[in-house]
């Protein structure tokens, strides 16, 4: 199944009626897990920090949850708009089963609106506006196993908004020995996150900046809930990596990178891998250039100096910043170019030279 194929109908086709009760698309409808009824047939969503209060026949901010007569439902259970086999390095997860593949799925919708979103053509649409295919949790697990994928990745758009679909797919995947990873903005409330984490084997969170101003102006979100999620994930012991997409002039200040790095070291520990990634103009931010490599290299130095042991640069393949080095002796442990693992010399998760254990999920 090809993502490009799914997306080819984007914007030109909107094949489904709008309402959840429509027979043709009713198979994708499930009662949502986290919501409360309020007066006048209105509901309060308790899945993410937005806390949408939604009137009858209206949808939440994500565009994929609808109030149907006072009952809150998801419209995207089993409604995949993308399904691909990707290298796990593409997520990016560098300390999680390197060299394996992830069966990667997404639905329409997102609970933020990042003006630099690289997948806006699915994340910023409603489910009925994009071609989709039926891919229910048992299908997802079977497809992943059938393609010899080590994991299922919930990715591309924002998995939090297809929570029920992700949760059940992760359960089905585990039944077949396939693990699950969530590639997320971390914008989720504690209770649903704590229910989900035992079903996940790794989480990558986009920490998009370290200022609330950036989150509010460019993402229609807030910083603090993301920081809270990062703490909860770490506390639960689920493998965690962080990506910070660097936008020139917006979140690339030395002070901000230092503050972000120090916060991670202090709150999450120095062994959480951090990826600084290159921005390219897209969606609603087309007036900024690509992030200069020199800026990314500066981020790298600041983060290393702050005490982070595993810092990577993304979207700039071939410069050596994708390699995993032993923080003890400096030996190159995993050599990568782009999403390709060229060599992996780890011995049972440890450096073959000095024997230092390297944190991650290696088998």
């Amino acid at each position, binding site marked *: 199944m090809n993502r490009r194929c799914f997306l080819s109908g984007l914007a030109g086709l*909107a094949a489904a009626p709008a*309402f959840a009760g429509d027979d043709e698309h009713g198979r994708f409808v499930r009662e949502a897990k986290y919501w409360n009824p309020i007066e006048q047939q*209105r509901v309060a969503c308790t899945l993410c920090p937005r806390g949408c209060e939604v009137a009858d026949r209206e949808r939440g901010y994500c565009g994929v949850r609808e109030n149907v007569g006072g009952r809150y439902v998801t419209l995207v259970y089993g409604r995949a708009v993308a399904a691909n086999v990707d290298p796990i390095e593409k997520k990016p997860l560098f300390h999680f089963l390197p060299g394996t593949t992830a069966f990667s799925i997404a639905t329409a919708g997102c609970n933020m609106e990042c003006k630099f979103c690289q997948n806006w053509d699915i994340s910023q649409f409603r489910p009925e506006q994009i071609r989709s295919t039926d891919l229910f949790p048992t299908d997802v697990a079977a497809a992943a196993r059938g393609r010899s994928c080590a994991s299922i990745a919930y990715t591309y758009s924002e998995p939090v908004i297809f929570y029920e679909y992700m949760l059940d797919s992760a359960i089905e995947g585990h039944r077949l020995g396939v693990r699950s990873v969530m590639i997320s903005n971390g914008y989720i409330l504690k209770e649903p996150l704590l229910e989900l984490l035992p079903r996940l084997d790794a989480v990558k969170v986009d920490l998009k900046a370290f200022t609330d101003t950036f989150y509010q102006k460019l993402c229609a979100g807030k910083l603090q809930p993301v920081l809270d999620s990062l703490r909860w994930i770490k506390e639960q012991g689920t493998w965690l990596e962080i990506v910070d997409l660097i936008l020139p002039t917006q979140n690339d200040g030395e002070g901000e990178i230092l503050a972000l790095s120090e916060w991670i070291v202090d709150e999450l520990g120095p062994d959480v891998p951090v990826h600084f990634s290159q921005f390219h103009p897209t969606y*609603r931010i087309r007036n900024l250039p690509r992030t200069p490599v020199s800026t990314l290299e500066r981020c790298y130095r600041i983060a290393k100096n702050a005490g982070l042991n595993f810092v990577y640069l993304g979207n700039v393949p071939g410069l050596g910043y994708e390699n995993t080095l032993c923080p003890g002796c400096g030996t190159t442990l995993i050599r990568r170019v782009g999403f390709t693992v060229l060599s992996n010399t780890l011995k049972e998760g440890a450096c073959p030279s000095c024997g230092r254990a390297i944190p991650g999920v290696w088998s």
Partner: protein
Amino acid sequence: MNRRSFVHSLSSAALVGAFHVPCDGGTGGRPSGALSPDTDSTVVIVRRVGLSQLKGDGRTGAYRTLLEEAFSTLGKTSLAQRVSGRNTIGLKANCLAGRPLSPSPELAQALSGMLRDVGVREVTVWERTMRELTRAGFTARGSFTIIGTDAVGYGRTIYESGDVGSLLSNALLNSDGLVSVGMLKDHDLAGISCVLKNLYGTIHNPNKYHDYNCNPYVAHVASLPPIRERLVLSVLDCATAQCHGGPSYKPAWAWPFDGILVSFDPVAADRIAADLIEDQRAIRELPTLEADRRPPRWIETAGLMGLGEHRRDAITVREVIV
């Protein structure tokens, strides 16, 4: 409208009547949208006892009478001037609430006929989906076709204004004129959903723009260039109105207003619509929209952005009962 508000409207109209500036239609070679500085901010309310009870041809005829009265009040040739140079006009109907609280197909029929009478070649009635249109009772009729954006899709250009960035329905982009045909109704977040809020149905991502009681987003959507250039007329079907519990239909809060509201100024139309809803809420001892934490402040924002007149004392209201 109760007697108190009716009298209030009339005295207000009398007060500002001297400053009424007749609409002069297009400017130069390019048709002006309703959202241009020369727009007349008169709002006409025409009512007919029992309108909401009429069916079929009788209802179409009644709407035609109400519309003729409205345009006559706005200026005899006003409609022709307003749509001059526009061949294809789309009526954006707000059909979210299903048949009981959606614009009447008979109103669309009457309006379509009048538009054709003044030279418009093609009239469409459109909404987000065909299903919404059919649920509201719309079928293709002699004088108009119906289009769901689900059938024609969205354009590929992201249009931006202020905080809003959206793709626009091809139903809008393929026409050269737009009439917002809404309802007189309450909205749980925006305060009201009448003329301008109806325009959320033109964009692909309306769910992104409901925070902060839709302020400033309603104004920003209305100022997206393809909308601003095309919007020539605002019509509210007020046969049945609703003062609380919107945007879906809640019979307990609905009442027969038995009329229509027409204006070339969408902001003025919403200002008056908000007043009518507030009046009804007062009658029912409901809190004001402000007290209910959902004041439609986007009306003022729209006015300050030059999309129309938001100041009540600068709006002329004419009420006619036929």
